[in-house]
């Protein structure tokens, strides 16, 4: 299977925003940002910067022609800070110059005076001070208080999970071109072309038809360019609008790191009650989400945390409370998993604590409580087509959980310095945007008169292979060579009102829309064939390998001949289709409903070795049985799973975002923020596709794959803790992620 995007990548021919050839006279933008986390702006003097040779303009909030507002769900985020600043890295001014170098030099000439206010960087502190983005959200069922009274064992505890930088290899950026009639065209590195369009329109004060957003591809997104690509596109747009020249704004890495939000750090309190034989009866949890200085997507992320509070398990009594806390950090945002990983980490920590108390392995409790068919989640949806147990038992048999345990125990008896640990990690992840209206997509398919095909959808290619999947859909329906099919850029003038490429759903939604559009065309062509060649209405026309068949016999008409014939007979060779996921709804008052089209399941087992002198460790293996439905693009799906697992491991181990108490990011470069390299990848990684899985709600019976496997990485944390316990059996360790070598060593030796 030849993936066309990939053939260009390996030749270095794929174009990213920074690679487009820009017109003569293009100006380069550099963003001046706040150096303090909280304060009032007393004065700002741009005169010297404006006089700097090569500088064309310095733009401040007051220059914005429309509203100074880019908040998506809640309107609480100015494009440029006006009177106050709320986080280090908050944009205040845009310097436009003949070169980026000049713009960056000139930026240093801006003089600003602040009255500093005390910043809040901790979610619990923000909560104590009443700084909530929205009122508390509670998802519940049963009666936890009553249930706890009847539990044989009750454990309580606390978890912390850290922020995570997306570190898309391509930084944020956009190029804005003035178009005739005061419009703007934007080439943006965005996961949400329509959201970007909307943000640009708002700040420009233009109707949406005046702003066109075009996306070729992204050098990685991972959620970081879902909402947070908008600001840079809007800044480029305002600049181009005001100065009537093309403006290019590409963030240098360190600016990207300090100005953009991350995965939300969470702090949580949990309480779990079980029967003496390990059946989970009640679970109460309160999540303190560190939202940062503006809402961004935090409220939607918080909801997904609450949806996934019980991970892959059935719990009859649940009370999950979510608190989105406003702090003086950059607004935290979507990141692969979207609040789910934090919820699952908390639940697994509770299981671990319960297991320790009961004196059993965590896997005993995990296995006993896995979701069965039609078990009800605390928000009212039933676990239909549940593969939780199928994946677990397949993994247990295939990867020999018992043997792993024996090997680990033997190793630990024989070794004093190195200790091994392992952990199992089942997952259940709901597929759909939890905002029901977003579960829609469009496709526009053109068959050109030479038989080649162009497909436009709302999906953005960012490495997840969605373009290739869409090509496979079109190629399958028309039964033509993939080489005949091109997936076009994602463009708001071709497919309007797009949902962002997010929630793992782009292949499903846009694949289905493509399928509908292609089927419309195929039916139109079949009708045409019947009429043109005088077949009867009951004859079965089919396309097979570029040939037209009637009642399973080739009629000597190729695809290309058919298209030419149709064209000259004035058949409409273009089709547009819209797809909306059926049957989903959610009542946001009662917090009950069928929020997800379906669920993705799996189980992984993670093995690690810890060096107990140095506190360092390696991940020996990650083996997973994952439910892909019926995968129709194995190489892509496997790659998504492996990449997500690695990102999950990074989040749990070495990826440590550190803000000091003044709210300044200390890990603002790749030299201080470490993501996994080729040496830190698991020595062995095995992803097994669960057999006999079906999913009519996914494209071609497949299942969404982008996010769910990330959560297998959580197993790494518990595997490490198990190895540490082998060295210090008497110690109780904190549930604080990431478990850096520093935390390992301090935990092992600090009394």
């Amino acid at each position, binding site marked *: 299977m030849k993936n066309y995007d990939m053939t260009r990548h390996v030749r270095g021919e*794929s174009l990213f925003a920074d690679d487009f050839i820009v017109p003569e006279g293009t100006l380069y933008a550099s963003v001046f940002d706040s150096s303090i986390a909280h304060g009032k702006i007393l004065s700002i003097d741009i005169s010297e910067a404006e006089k700097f040779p090569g500088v064309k303009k310095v733009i401040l909030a007051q220059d914005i022609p429309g509203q100074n507002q880019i908040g998506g769900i809640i309107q609480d985020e100015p494009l440029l800070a006006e009177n106050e600043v709320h986080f280090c890295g908050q944009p205040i001014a845009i310097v436009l110059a003949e070169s980026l170098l000049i713009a960056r030099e000139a930026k240093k000439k801006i003089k600003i005076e602040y009255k500093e206010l005390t910043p809040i960087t901790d979610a619990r502190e923000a909560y104590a001070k009443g700084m909530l983005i929205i009122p508390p959200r509670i998802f519940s069922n049963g009666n936890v208080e009553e249930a706890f009274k009847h539990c044989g064992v009750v454990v309580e505890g606390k978890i912390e999970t850290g922020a995570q930088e997306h570190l898309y290899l391509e930084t944020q950026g956009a190029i804005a071109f003035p178009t005739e009639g005061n419009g703007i065209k934007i080439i943006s590195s965005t996961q949400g072309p329509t959201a970007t369009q909307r943000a640009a329109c708002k700040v420009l004060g233009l109707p949406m038809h005046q702003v066109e957003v075009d996306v070729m591809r992204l050098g990685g997104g991972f959620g970081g360019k879902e909402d947070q690509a908008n600001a840079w596109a809007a800044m480029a747009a305002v600049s181009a609008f005001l100065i009537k020249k093309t403006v290019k704004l590409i963030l240098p890495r360190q600016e990207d790191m300090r100005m953009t939000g991350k995965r939300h750090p969470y702090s949580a309190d949990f309480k779990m009650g079980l029967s003496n034989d390990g059946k989970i009866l009640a679970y109460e949890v309160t999540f303190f989400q560190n939202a940062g200085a503006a809402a961004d997507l935090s409220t939607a992320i918080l909801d997904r945390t609450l949806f996934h509070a019980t991970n892959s398990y059935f719990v009859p009594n649940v009370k999950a409370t979510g608190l989105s806390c406003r702090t003086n950090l950059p607004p935290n945002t979507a990141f692969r998993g979207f609040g789910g990983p934090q919820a699952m980490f908390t639940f697994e920590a509770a299981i671990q604590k319960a297991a320790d108390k009961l004196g059993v392995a965590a896997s005993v409790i995990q296995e006993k409580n896995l979701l069965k068919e039609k078990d009800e989640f605390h928000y009212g949806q039933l676990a239909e087509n549940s593969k939780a147990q199928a994946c677990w038992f397949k993994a247990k048999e295939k990867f020999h959980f018992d043997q792993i345990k024996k090997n680990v125990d033997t190793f630990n008896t024989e070794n004093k310095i190195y200790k091994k640990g392992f952990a199992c990690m089942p997952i259940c992840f709901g597929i759909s945007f939890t905002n029901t209206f977003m579960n829609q997509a469009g496709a526009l398919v053109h068959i050109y008169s030479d038989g080649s095909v162009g497909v436009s959808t709302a999906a953005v290619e960012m490495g997840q292979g969605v373009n290739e999947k869409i090509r496979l859909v079109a190629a399958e329906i028309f039964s033509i060579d993939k080489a005949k099919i091109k997936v076009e850029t994602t463009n708001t003038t071709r497919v309007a009102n797009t949902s962002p490429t997010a929630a793992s759903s782009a292949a499903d939604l846009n694949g289905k829309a493509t399928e509908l559009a292609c089927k419309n065309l195929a039916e139109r062509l079949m009708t045409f064939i019947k009429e043109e060649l005088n077949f009867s209405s009951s004859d079965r026309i089919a396309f097979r390998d570029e040939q037209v068949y009637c009642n399973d016999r080739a009629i000597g008409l190729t695809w290309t001949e058919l298209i030419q014939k149709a064209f000259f007979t004035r058949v409409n060779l273009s089709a547009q289709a819209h797809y909306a996921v059926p049957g989903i709804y959610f009542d946001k008052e009662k917090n009950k409903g069928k929020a997800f089209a379906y669920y993705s399941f799996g189980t992984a087992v993670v093995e690690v070795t810890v060096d107990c002198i140095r506190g360092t460790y390696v991940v020996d293996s990650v083996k997973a049985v994952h439910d892909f439905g019926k995968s129709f693009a194995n190489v892509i799906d496997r790659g998504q799973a492996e990449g997500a697992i690695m990102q999950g491991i990074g989040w749990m181990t070495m990826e440590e975002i550190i803000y000091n108490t003044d709210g300044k990011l200390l890990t603002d470069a790749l030299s201080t923020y470490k993501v996994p390299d080729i040496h830190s990848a698991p020595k062995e990684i095995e992803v097994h596709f669960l057999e006999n899985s079906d999913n009519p709600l996914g494209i071609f019976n497949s299942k969404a794959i982008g996010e769910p496997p990330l959560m297998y990485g959580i197993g790494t944390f518990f595997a490490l803790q198990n190895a540490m316990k082998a060295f210090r059996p008497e110690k109780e360790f904190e549930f604080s992620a990431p478990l850096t070598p520093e935390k390992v060593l301090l935990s092992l030796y600090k009394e």
Partner: protein
Amino acid sequence: MKNIIHFICNDQEITTELHPATTVLDFVRKNLHLTGTKEGCREGDCGACTVLVGELLDGRVIYKSVNSCLLPVASLHGKHLVTVEGINQKELNPLQHAFVDEGASQCGFCTPGFLMSLTGYFLANDVYSAEEAITSLDGNICRCTGYASIKRSTEKVTAEITMNKNHSSVEKLVELKVLPDYFLGIQKRLTAIPPFINTPTNDVLVSGGTDLFVQQWEKLLSSDVEFLQRDNTESAIRIENDLCFIDARTTISEIKSSASLKKYFPQLANYFQYFGSLPIRNRATVGGNIINASPIGDMTNFLLALDAQVHLNEKDNERVVPLKNFYTGYKQFDKKENEIITSTSFKLPETNSHFNYEKVSKRTFLDIASVNASIYLEEENLQIKNVHLSAGGVAPYPLYLSKTKEFLLKKTISPQLLKQAAEIIEEEISPISDARGSAEYKRLLLRQLFFAHFIKLFPEIISLEEVV
């Protein structure tokens, strides 16, 4: 008068009068519009901008992978620069094929860098192994694939190429279509380029530039720079009697692979695999590491434990300063303004002496140490005759543990002794909390690494449970 920089980029002859400190990354992207080379971080930490530089040596062109974001265009003079566009042929080459087949490219942004590193591996080595080929990718970060598919494709293509070829040569790689055939003419074309005339300056001296171009690339563009490049004919590492001299411009790669040093330090290649990444090691120099004065320098840590000397020169006046006395404060050293470091030297280890190097960082490879530590030790029946200990990340500069040394001298190695020594180390160090760890952690870690030296060197005498 401006200097003309003359080199070959891919198949194209280039002459330019641009500021010599212009980075090769900017030059290829902006001036040549070759956008396959990507900007990911501008600090040599992601590898998306990896290119190959081929240099004439003994009538052959020797290629190395380097980070183009840290590479001044002047350093290309007389050389062959290869970007991803320069390996493209009509059909995908075997490396590109393997990447596509295994899905080793997702978003595609890091991919050209990976392919350049891998091409560099096949060009730079005579014997291939999948493991080494994968290790040659230690300077490349991929955020999408999780590396599994990259490893698979690397294994596959290494096996393929190994099967078809016995020795390394450009000719063979051209035959296998790994390289386009214009590579065959490069050697001859490079010979024709006249040498570069360096303008001596008192402004900025640039050696490997692997830190200078991270910190000050913008400033360098408005400075007079002089490049300290070594003539390939000069011997970088010289052994005279019991002394070893290393030219300040020697790269870490040259030291790591030095056969003469390996005789004295059998684990040398292991120690230096933790120094930066391959592209960084191909550029970074000993002199640069010394003058950089970073408290967690890896080379200085190694040299301190050998009680090395720093050779300084000003107008042919040589001055020699022991490295342990060279540093006087954070980024402060005993060097006169116009002195430059010419070399470093140290006494070669005695037979039966012991040496060990330890480094712990958040990420094991391509990361700056939280703490590093080296030891050189001579003993007789466990009685310590001579010892040098160094520690990085625990003081404002690379630290020589002189008090601990005094304490240990003439004593007999035992768990009790080490515990006492660890207390003296505590008094000698003054770590601070930063992104690489809390002060508390660094104290504990150095103690552990000190113990690790002895657990590793004297496993029969010292065990972990006896010291902690």
